[in-house]
């Protein structure tokens, strides 16, 4: 356990747990899947989290950055994070190898309220690295398939090789009452699938809004047009859920970096329905 804060009985919330990298797998040219094991057995056993929650990973000597947990706690296969190379911390993390140490703080934030979605049809719409927080949603639903209605997964990326979770596509596509639609901005020689933007695919497939929830994550521009498309299909704002990205530094509601209106994305989010987001004074 991290040491206690002297005289308070509390634990220093900035002090990360130490974790060891167990696996590093290339998902796309710029995304690696990092498998971690927490070093302290007691913390490892008690570390529980839900789809949509995130944690900070430290590359020691460089800094830390927030990442969505992309594994499913109940599967007990270790903690997984999809790390896309975008800055100094992510580059440093990608340089690491199995056996190396990282720091981990978390889990933070709220989660997708999957309990509330029992019996509903689920539409998952993810673009690029935005699939990372959606993957545990899909896998949790697949693990409890009978609890949920039909599932439509729309996954887009810039090119076929940027579809990060390709190794799992067969499992997803073959699951009962599950449909997987892939789309890319630019195809390549081997690509026979759809070449379209994600919002266009949503418009073509016209998923029904009846008894349905749409869960979406991706670049802001994709979200904006997807939202418009879903509204056109009759989805009410409370039926559309997303996870907001922001420049968080602490995850504790202290650094005020992720402040939007009276909300801190790190604590009140990152998962919000568009009904909640539309009540923000300032819209992201």
């Amino acid at each position, binding site marked *: 356990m991290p040491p206690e804060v002297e*005289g308070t009985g509390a634990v220093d919330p900035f002090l990360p747990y130490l974790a060891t990298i167990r696996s590093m797998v290339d998902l796309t040219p710029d995304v690696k899947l990092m498998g971690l094991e927490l070093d302290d057995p007691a913390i490892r056993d008690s570390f529980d989290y839900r789809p949509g929650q995130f944690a900070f990973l430290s590359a020691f*000597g460089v800094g830390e950055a927030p990442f969505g947990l992309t594994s499913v706690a109940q599967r007990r296969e270790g903690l997984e994070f999809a790390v896309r190379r975008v800055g100094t911390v992510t580059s440093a993390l990608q340089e690491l190898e199995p056996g190396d140490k990282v720091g981990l703080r978390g889990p933070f934030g709220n989660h997708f309220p999957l309990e509330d979605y029992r019996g509903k049809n689920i539409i998952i719409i993810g673009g690029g690295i935005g699939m990372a927080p959606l993957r545990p949603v899909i896998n949790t639903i697949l693990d409890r398939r009978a609890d949920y209605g039909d599932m439509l997964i729309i996954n887009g990326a810039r090119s076929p090789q940027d579809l990060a979770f390709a190794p799992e596509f067969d499992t997803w596509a073959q699951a009962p009452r599950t449909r997987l639609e892939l789309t890319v901005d630019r195809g390549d020689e081997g690509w026979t699938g759809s070449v379209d933007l994600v919002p266009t695919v949503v418009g073509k497939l016209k998923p029904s809004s009846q008894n349905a929830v749409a869960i979406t994550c991706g670049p802001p521009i994709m979200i904006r047009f997807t939202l418009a498309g879903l509204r056109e299909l009759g989805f009410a704002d409370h039926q559309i859920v997303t996870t907001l990205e922001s420049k968080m530094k602490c995850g504790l509601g*202290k650094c005020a970096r992720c402040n939007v209106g009276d909300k801190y994305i790190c604590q009140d989010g990152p998962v919000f329905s568009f009904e909640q987001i539309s009540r923000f004074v300032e819209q992201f």
Partner: protein
Amino acid sequence: MSQFMSGEDLRSWLGNLAQERTLIAPIRSDGLVLFGAVSRAEEIALDYDNTLLSPKGHLFPATDTLFTIERREGGIELVPASVEGEAAIFGIRPCDALGLRVLDRPFLAEPADALYQQRRARTALIGLSCHKASPECFCTSLGTGPDDPSNVDILLTGAGEGYIVQAVTERGKALLATAPLVEAEVTPPPAPSPTPVPTEDIAEVARRAFDVPYWARLADRCIHCNLCAYVCPVCYCFDIRDHSYMGRMERMRTWESCQSPGFSRIAGGYEPRDTKGARLRQRFYHKLLYMPEQFGVIGCTGCGRCVTSCPVNIDIREVISEMQRLGASSAS
């Protein structure tokens, strides 16, 4: 009858205090008055309006090591920073004491910020009432006042040749146990009265004044330096990164300002607040609307530092008055 201490006795008491704990007090150097650690009472400035920077930096330093990272035999050990010894801040003004009370809201909320919590617990506040109201002061519009004792352990108020001493808390009483106090019949000078600013219902007004062209016009003038946030006793945004030097690694946090251009830019380059107006509005809305909504306190104490130090005179008093006007007119 009040407890009274002469100016000379105050210096000798402070001198003794500096021997037993870290004493932070106003010091004059190069024409500036800044809080700093003093070892001798003679270093302390007593005749100042207010310090250039607020004392928040002694509880929430501009640069703070959260922990050090040590590599040992292939493994990593994290050594948390520790806070040692007791401290006292002498000469804190009531506005700045209120500022610390406001900072408590985010920093002491669970899970508490460990370093801030320890420093706060170990730092006694010896307040000094204001002898005059500077033109930029508006503390009375924000729930405190020039002789408000409510957020300090001890409050001193200059009167005649010395100071009236109020022990406000138990800690204050303990600190004064060895002080050369006398009972005296002294009347404090009348408290100065700063010019009021219309802060009533400011949160309500703010909700209505959000989408007005005023913010873009105001931002024309703003040069987006971090000055207002750094001089503010309440602004608490920070940045965290690691610092490596000659093999030594530390996780550091430093002050940061919502006015700096990359403040909210996320990985991949998306900037949610991408206009100068949106950034400037964030500063005032965080203080006047979001903090009241979130914590029930206004994120401003009326110290006036941002007013005096803004290079282009973005004056929060004027902004508040404008918001009142704009919020009122868009309601009707």
